[in-house]
């Protein structure tokens, strides 16, 4: 009997634990990698600044976690339970003692056309054309940039779904102390101007700039070479130099897995780089190192010689980062040119 009661208590205790997920642990697991455990930012923006956390509602945080910011690095977390999302919000609330704000959903009425002009004049230098957001990632621990904190995208479906008009209006009125986002009143704008700006930002909803590219892409760029492996390698080396890239080294796919000299000589990798390009790519998103330095592989199988590279166009989707698109398009052109030169 005693044993049964004990078991019952244990079972109950376990279910209590289940009912209240550990917000700090969840934050460490899902968010800290970008925002830091203390919320000070990293690849992600700072979250623990009182000027931020005191000025956003629970609903704003919940919706942001659910939807993320498509194309702006911040992932969506559709798989977390409501209880987990609430625990995360609760955890973030621990960064401040201030009472939690709420924002009503009343639309702010303004002149979006006028707002557009004001935006170009007062906001675009940081938030980018059409509010597409600043360049780079969260804060600048490892990267030197003009702004200490990236200006978030405002034409993003995740942001627009999370933010009410009154929240946007408050952000403009009060600014965010400790960040480059200053109060628009201090900048000299009137409340009418602010209403017009809010209406303009809301108008992005009609055509949010998201990465919504349903396009299915090939995983690799590949071509057959009419030459031998050795000839193809020589051609590639010349083509790499022609594209102003530096060959770092040539080795085998099996390098490091088998004894040196015993590698399969029919699977060759040419590693190459261009430091300007590398720097640019890392400044946009430090995580892209996973695909650096650039490589092209030459393989021979059943008498067929194949030259292949990854398809850089996949990366912006992989990294949920639209800003990588341009660099990736450029890289795709370079890979194609190198391969084409080598197999012609």
């Amino acid at each position: 009997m005693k044993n049964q009661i004990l078991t019952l208590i244990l079972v109950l205790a376990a279910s209590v634990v289940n009912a209240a997920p550990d917000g700090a642990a969840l934050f460490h697991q899902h968010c800290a990698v970008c925002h830091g455990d203390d919320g000070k930012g990293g690849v992600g923006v700072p979250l623990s600044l009182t000027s931020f956390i005191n000025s956003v509602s629970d609903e704003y945080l919940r919706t942001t976690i659910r939807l993320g910011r498509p194309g702006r690095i911040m992932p969506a977390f559709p798989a977390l339970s409501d209880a987990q999302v609430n625990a995360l919000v609760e955890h973030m609330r621990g960064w401040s003692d201030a009472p939690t704000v709420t924002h009503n959903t009343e639309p702010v009425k303004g002149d979006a056309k006028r707002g557009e002009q004001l935006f170009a004049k007062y906001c675009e230098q940081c938030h980018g054309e059409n509010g597409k957001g600043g360049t780079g990632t969260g804060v600048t621990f490892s990267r030197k940039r003009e702004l200490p904190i990236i200006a978030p995208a405002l034409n993003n479906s995740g942001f627009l779904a999370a933010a009410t008009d009154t929240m946007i209006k408050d952000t403009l009125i009060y600014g965010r102390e400790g960040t480059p986002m200053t109060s628009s009143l201090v900048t000299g704008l009137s409340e009418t101007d602010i209403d017009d700006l809010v209406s303009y930002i809301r108008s992005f909803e009609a055509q949010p700039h998201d990465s919504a590219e349903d396009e299915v892409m090939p995983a690799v760029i590949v071509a057959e070479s009419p030459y031998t492996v050795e000839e193809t390698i020589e051609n590639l080396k010349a083509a790499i130099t022609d594209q102003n890239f530096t060959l770092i080294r040539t080795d085998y796919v099996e390098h490091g897995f088998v004894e040196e000299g015993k590698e399969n000589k029919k699977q060759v990798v040419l590693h190459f780089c261009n430091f300007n390009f590398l720097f640019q790519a890392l400044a946009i998103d430090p995580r892209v190192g996973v695909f650096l330095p650039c490589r092209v592989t030459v393989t021979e199988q059943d008498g067929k010689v194949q030259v292949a590279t990854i398809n850089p166009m996949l990366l912006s989707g992989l990294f949920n980062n639209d800003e990588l698109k341009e660099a990736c398009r450029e890289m795709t052109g370079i890979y194609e040119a190198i391969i084409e030169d080598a197999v012609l």
Partner: protein
Amino acid sequence: MMARLVVLIALLVSSLSVVANPFAAVFASNLIMARSHEKFPEAMLTLQSSIKEHGYTVARVQRIDIGLTGMGFKTDKYRVVFVGKKDEIQYLTKKYPELTPYMPPKVSIFAEDEDTVAVTVNPAVYKDMIDDEEDRRIFDRWENDVYSVFKDFSEAAEN
């Protein structure tokens, strides 16, 4: 120009197509990331020993930061670690030459202030490049192992 290239249509299924409905988006799982409160050299050691404990070989550690400091990058602590199991890499690249540009898989590791961050592509992304059910399981194992290694990595400073 593209006409000259035989573009291999290894279709990447759901995990790469950015879905219009944000609720269906699965960005979170395309990349696996972890943060460690260890400084770079210690974090690097933790990462490599966990990789080895999980039965994988560290085939190479590549610096990609040469010249970065001079260009305004505040960290010179940036490495790419090439990881795999010999038999699996040999088997996969032989059977699926189109996977070769992605093999062996890599983990990038870089310092961020006092912390260290590790990033890798979710092996599920490679899994979607092939059809054979049996072979796809290799990537399921890799995925589990990445989560386990990254757990070691992110919890190291707490021990």
